């Protein structure tokens, strides 16, 4: 019997009701690094770690005593040398010589234990992530609702009050809040792209100074409102880089608007562009509240924001998106702060494009547009006839009003079929068409137009409007025959500029 017990490929042990070991096989003795003979008479507790001993007393033994058997109980043995051995134990009560004894088989599960540790860790991490996401959803709902309340509230006021000053003020508020909400949605879409790995760059050769200047034009207003001075030092040797100008502008906008947001009135923001070896560095420093050293590692994390950033509004996504964009450019970003109240510096590093390299890979047909062009400098569209196609009456009305204001003549169509007829009949200067429409979409309309004869309007320049800003959507619009692709929400001024440029190009 002993020979068989010693030969089985697992540990075996019997103990009495008081825990005294009455029998143990050679394999078990080897597991705990003790002499087989020395085990008999020893308390089973001596073979367990402290945690396992408590578990034995509070769970294992009571259960075994009541149920008569236990299966797959996890315990940690302790060797004579103090090493821990994770094991699984099956045990059963038997009567032998008139007394109860408990027979146990013991399997080492070191590898399985490590595996389970990993699983447990992964489970906890997943639970944490789920919680963070729930919190984040709550913040998103709140942030989306805030501008909506302002918009709805003012819409009601405007319905009742026709006083021109009030109207002016109301429209300002509505516009500002709609823009804020649009930006939140843009950020959410970006994060969703990042999560699904679909964030793409439209790469070309970019002069970082141009991007910086353009961003400063946008941010200056917010800075001036808080009497914050933005100092810039731009090294003329820094650049060019290979990148997506819109995305790089987004990076700078995030850094600068954060700096302005967290800097008190009358403070300063400093922007420095410099060349360091084969890289350029963009440093944005502010005199704001600084960053708690404990929070510094989480600054770039999705769905996580500094405990008090809620006070400042926003989703706390900007920095996560920024980091992702910078990394897609082959660069890196880091944050530095000497602590709370001591300001913060964000440093973006991007590789400089070698001089002999070819330029952008993208034969871009993007029309360059500045966002915040003042109204009075907008081009006029006198003499231009726009054929506007959109199935949504509201969108049609808004865009119609935009074109009329710039002096254009407008014909509207509510479907692709209607537009196809009108185009041949009226021969407009330019076509502006929605893409997502029922029955026939804008892509199909465009393809049909491009098969017409020249006299019927085959070469009419065309602008596509879509809700999808993915690079693929843009490519599909362009290959269907559109010259320009704009993403909703459409900025009216941008649309006017685009149409003016397009007609000029065609005329030229």
């Amino acid at each position, binding site marked *: 019997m002993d020979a068989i017990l010693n030969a089985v490929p697992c540990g075996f042990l019997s103990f009495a009701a008081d825990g005294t070991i009455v029998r143990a096989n050679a394999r078990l003795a080897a597991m705990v690094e003790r002499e087989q003979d020395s085990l008999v008479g020893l308390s089973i507790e001596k073979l367990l770690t402290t945690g396992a001993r408590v*578990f034995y007393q509070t769970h294992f033994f009571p259960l075994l005593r009541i149920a008569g058997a236990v299966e797959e109980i996890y315990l940690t043995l302790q060797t004579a040398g103090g090493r821990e051995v994770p094991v699984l134990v099956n045990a059963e009560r038997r009567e032998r010589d008139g007394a109860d004894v408990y027979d146990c088989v013991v399997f080492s599960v070191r590898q399985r234990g490590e595996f389970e540790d990993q699983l447990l860790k992964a489970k906890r991490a997943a639970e944490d992530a789920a919680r963070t996401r729930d919190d984040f959803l709550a913040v998103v709902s709140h942030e989306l609702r805030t501008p909506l309340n302002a918009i709805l509230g003012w819409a009601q006021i405007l319905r009742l009050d026709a006083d021109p000053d009030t109207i002016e003020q109301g429209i300002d508020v509505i516009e500002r809040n709609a823009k804020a909400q649009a930006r939140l949605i843009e950020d959410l879409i970006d994060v969703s792209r990042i999560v699904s790995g679909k964030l793409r760059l439209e790469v070309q050769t970019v002069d970082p100074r141009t991007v910086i200047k353009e961003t400063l034009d946008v941010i200056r207003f917010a800075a001036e409102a808080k009497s914050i001075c933005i100092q810039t030092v731009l090294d003329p040797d820094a650049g060019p880089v290979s990148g997506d100008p819109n995305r790089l502008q987004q990076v700078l906008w995030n850094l600068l608007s954060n700096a302005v947001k967290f800097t008190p009135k009358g403070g300063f923001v400093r922007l420095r562009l410099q060349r360091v070896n084969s890289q350029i560095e963009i440093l944005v420093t502010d005199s704001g509240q600084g960053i708690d050293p404990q929070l510094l590692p989480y600054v770039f994390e999705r769905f996580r924001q500094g405990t008090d950033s809620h006070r400042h509004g926003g989703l706390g996504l900007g920095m996560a998106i920024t980091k992702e964009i910078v990394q897609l450019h082959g660069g890196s970003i880091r944050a530095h702060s000497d602590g709370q109240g001591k300001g913060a510096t964000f440093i973006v590093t991007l590789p400089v494009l070698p001089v002999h390299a070819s330029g952008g890979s993208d034969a871009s047909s993007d029309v360059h547009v500045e966002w915040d062009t003042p109204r009075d400098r907008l081009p006029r569209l006198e003499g231009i006839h726009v054929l506007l196609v959109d199935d949504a009456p509201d969108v049609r009305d808004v865009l119609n009003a935009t074109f009329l204001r710039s002096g254009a003549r407008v014909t509207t169509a509510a479907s692709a079929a209607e537009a196809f007829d009108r185009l041949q009949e009226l021969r407009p200067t330019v076509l502006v068409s929605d893409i997502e429409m029922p029955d026939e979409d804008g892509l199909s309309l465009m393809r049909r137009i491009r098969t017409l004869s020249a006299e019927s309007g085959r070469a009419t320049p065309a602008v596509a409007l879509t809700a999808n800003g993915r690079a693929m959507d843009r490519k599909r619009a362009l290959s269907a025959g559109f010259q320009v692709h704009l993403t909703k929400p459409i900025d009216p001024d941008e649309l006017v500029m685009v149409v003016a440029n397009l007609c000029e190009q065609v005329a030229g």
Partner: protein
Amino acid sequence: MVFAHGFGCDQNMWRYITPAFEADYRIVLFDYVGSGGSDLRAYSDNRYGSLDGYAEDLLDVCQALDLREVVVVGHSVSSIIAMLAAIREPQRFSQLILVGPSPRYVDDPPGYRGGFVRSDIEGLLEMMDKNYMGWASFLAPNVMKNPDRPELSEELEQSFCSTDPRVARQFAKVTFLSDNREDLASVTTPSLILQCSDDMIAPLEVGDYMHQHLKGSTLRVMKATGHCPHMSHPEETIELMRDYLAACE
């Protein structure tokens, strides 16, 4: 006579003791909320965030059955729970029988040795995580697959599987990280301390400490070893309980 089970178990643990007292006492057994066959919906983190919540369970049982002159038999942490209940409603209880009690498990140097350091408790929690993860996912079906011993699977299920891992974890923390040394002086009900001769959870010196600070307490050091004399040495346990109760009359 009300029997209060300890951490990790349920009322089943008293099955070797209760028959001996059935003739002379009305026997009341219960499971704390979160243990055994209790209704988990009644669990709240707040109420069971300290031993007071468990003491309320005990008092609720006594009130619901309108029990008077109660002898409470509490195992391990339930000794302390019974004490807390007796401090709140001393008129209800005639004697406390404390099996393996400890007012504080973690050492508090230099004056107090409870037998544990904090990291030991972490080790226990890890052990629970591993085993309860098993209970929830694969042990229960395994037991069900044991067709030749159906009575066993039912009991196993009863005593373990119905316990929610999160609740068990919380109970472990509340049990092993509590410090009730100051409460000892407030107990006026006479008590019997059953101290095992070799118990790593409640060592001998903890029994001495209890005895010194608990007015009207009787200390009996048992031949039994381990932490569950009512399960490992029921005869000796019954005998000491009987001796004590007889002496009280």
